């Protein structure tokens, strides 16, 4: 069988996740426009060169009373009129699904240069109304209807499951929160970069850090975020021209070396029931991570220089640590205590701040992770740069561990 054609990452642009676009009195289209124009500018790509566009978004119909988002791409520049575009939805994994679709089209030889935009404007409604909208990423009628903030509660149950199987201490979750917030201070586009946080605060049990779902408290949660990220993916042919035009070697342009994609049962209780007897609490997440490594030709996590993972809550990051194979199943706490997850540690996780620190505009998260992986392996991550990073892996999860996507980006 012939080798799969390569997919190159040319870079992109992230909006500042601390911005509140409703407060700026800006329409959803402004978010799209700024991210795409920013991406074109930072990658020095002319609009005429883009051949196709994919938009990842979860729930613009609910938050912004707006659908047909692929079409909004054509509003950014007159050159985009007539371009093939589409929109992809898989809850919080929407951005990764858009990336998968775009990369598959490059692998199929359909297009040489694709724009992928992940986008979500969430601050249009109150926190509780938004919480209900997010509940549609679960089986709404059975898991979310009538429940205030259903997702913290679902991920609280993930922590409970760990606790039941292996034991889980709040102080380890607090340490994850602390690291993410500290890393976010280094990231000029992170939502929480000015927020107050340290381990004492993450552990405090007052109204300033109120419980929102079982063991999940405010400091354990990613926040309601507005944001968009545009990245450009290219075929080898285009990447060769792109590199030559900039005096680079093709080997300096990062590639998507591997990917993984799995969908588990929708209800959290079904996922947990299926995993009884398995050493991993969410086996489909584990196989997604492993698939991406295998496709990249990387034996295990020791071949990965850093990870951008889906910490919608501290419990999902706790789960990711052993699912990436950093520790044995159930021993994620060992990596936390050993300091392996910090930027200068053995296995840095979320140097950007992750979802808890950098922010979680739902449909944009997967593309943000890929862009951060690109920045890391090209040495452009600024103050949150992992020294000498060559291979970075992402993990993006939709629902309560339902749709899982992972990419290995490397040079």
């Amino acid at each position, binding site marked *: 069988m012939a080798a799969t054609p390569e997919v190159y990452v040319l870079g992109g642009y992230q909006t500042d996740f601390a911005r509140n676009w409703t407060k700026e009195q*800006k329409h959803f289209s402004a978010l799209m426009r700024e991210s795409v124009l920013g991406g074109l500018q930072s990658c020095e790509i002319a609009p005429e060169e883009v051949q196709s566009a994919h938009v990842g978004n979860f729930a613009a119909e609910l938050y912004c009373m707006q659908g047909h988002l692929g079409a909004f791409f054509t509003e950014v520049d007159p050159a985009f009129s007539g371009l093939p575009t589409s929109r992809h939805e898989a809850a919080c994994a929407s951005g990764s699904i858009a990336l998968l679709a775009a990369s598959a089209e490059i692998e199929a030889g359909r297009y040489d240069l694709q724009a992928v935009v992940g986008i979500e404007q969430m601050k249009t409604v109150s926190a509780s109304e938004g919480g209900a909208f997010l509940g549609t990423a679960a089986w709404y009628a059975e898991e979310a209807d009538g429940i205030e903030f259903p997702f913290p509660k679902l991920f609280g149950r993930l922590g409970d499951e760990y606790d039941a199987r292996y034991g889980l201490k709040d102080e380890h979750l607090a340490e994850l929160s602390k690291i993410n917030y500290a890393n976010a201070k280094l990231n000029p586009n992170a939502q929480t970069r000015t927020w107050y946080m*340290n381990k004492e605060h993450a552990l405090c049990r*007052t109204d300033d850090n109120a419980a929102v779902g079982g063991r999940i408290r405010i400091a354990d949660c990613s926040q309601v975020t507005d944001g968009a990220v545009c990245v450009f993916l290219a075929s080898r042919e285009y990447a060769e021209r792109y590199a030559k035009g900039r005096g680079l070697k093709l080997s300096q342009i990062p590639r998507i070396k591997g990917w993984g994609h799995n969908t588990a049962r929708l209800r959290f209780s079904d996922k947990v029931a299926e995993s009884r007897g398995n050493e991993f609490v969410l086996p489909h997440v584990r196989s997604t991570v492993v698939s991406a490594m295998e496709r990249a030709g990387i034996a295990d996590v020791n071949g990965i220089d850093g990870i951008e993972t889906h910490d919608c809550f501290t419990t999902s990051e706790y789960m990711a640590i052993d699912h990436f194979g950093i520790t044995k199943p159930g021993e994620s706490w060992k990596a936390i205590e050993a300091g392996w997850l910090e930027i200068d540690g053995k296995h840095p996780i979320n140097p950007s701040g992750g979802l808890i620190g950098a922010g979680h505009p739902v449909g944009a998260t997967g593309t943000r992770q890929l862009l951060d992986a690109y920045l890391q392996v090209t040495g452009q991550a600024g103050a949150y740069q992992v020294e000498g990073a060559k291979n970075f892996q992402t993990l993006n999860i939709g629902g309560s561990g339902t749709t899982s996507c992972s990419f290995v980006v490397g040079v």
Partner: protein
Amino acid sequence: MSVTSKIPSGVELRKLLSSRSIERVVILGANGTMGYGSGALFTQAVPHVTFLARSKAKADEGLAEAISQVRSPTVASRVETGDYDSDLDAAVSKADLIFEALTEDFAIKKQMFDRVEKVRRDDSIIATVTSGLSINELCEGRNDSFRRNFLGLHFFNPPNVIVGTELIAGSDTDPALVDFIDAFARLRLGREMIRTSDTPAFAGNRVGFKVLNEAAQLAEQISPLLVDKIVGPYTGRAMTPLATIDLVGWDIHRAIVDNVFEKTDDEAHATLELPAYMAKLMEQGVLGNKTGGGFFKKDGKTRLVLDPATGNYQAEADVKLPKMEYVDDIAHLYGQARYREGMQLFLGAEGDEAELARKVIAGYVSYAFHRVGEATETLDGIDRIMGTGFNWAPPGVLVDTMGARAAVNMIEKAGLPVPDALTEAVKNGREDGFFDAPHINTGKFFVAG
């Protein structure tokens, strides 16, 4: 002057950070806004912080404010409080960093430094949060180790929200210390660091208060309500100028512009003279929001607007404003992130109001560009402090958005001096590319309001 226009990499910053450690910080003036605000910030990163004030009760008040500002009772777990008479000597002698946030009065600060000099360790760092007093003058006459370890660390208010921070070295400050503090503030406190020279009001307040004061001068000709409308969000600022002066406090505004007016003699000197009506009203106790009103005040749910000539107020709804449809049209374009098109409308808008607005904006751009080489080495420094300290569209962003030729035309029409950099750019056909901080989203400055 040492200036870093490019941000060092994280790897370089972490190397610098490892060169020494800060475990104990003392805050002098911990009951003041900048004292407790900065003190709270330090508690995120430093295990022991001592809040000192004239009395322990005052320091406790500062701690309570700090807790309330950052909404975390855990601030208290890292803070001790005390007073100058009983606790200063012991606290300062143990401190790695002494952070001075006393009232903006040269004599008071000097007196405090007399005490600090006597008890501090030779290797401790002394930082002042002064917003405009000379760093060199503040440490004049001190011993070598004091002068080598002394610098300005100008946070903006409130420090937990506004990340823009000016770092000002004195002529004897150890350059290695400046690099260390830069790294510490970036990595541990999440600051956007801008190095400025030791000029009056440094870079941010020099440029920012010139524009604010010009708006206050305009309020003698037209209603404050109209001033804030014409130099409003559509010109690249979330908070309007006169509302900003009310928030800052008229007394602070006066201290800054009087200082700059007295110590400089630049091309825009006249715009830095405090309007006489403000001085008169201040004598009657009008200081802005802190005294219940300034240019604006609230009467229940009704917003009232000052008449500078009489000192009386009238309801906002009773102030007749001219039609300014162009402002709404620009806001509509900004709502779709069409900033260049909005700026073209601004440049072409007809009427006295548009003319006045362009004069203020032209003054801002011209004045900022002329401070390059004086307040900061490059435009990048001024741009970043205006963007991250004032949350205003930086001058470089405005030029990039309107185009260099259009900016030159606007400045010429306003009768103001055109900066050489813009003349040169037009000659070379360069229309944009002045703003050099790609990590800052520029669209956020153009609020569609």
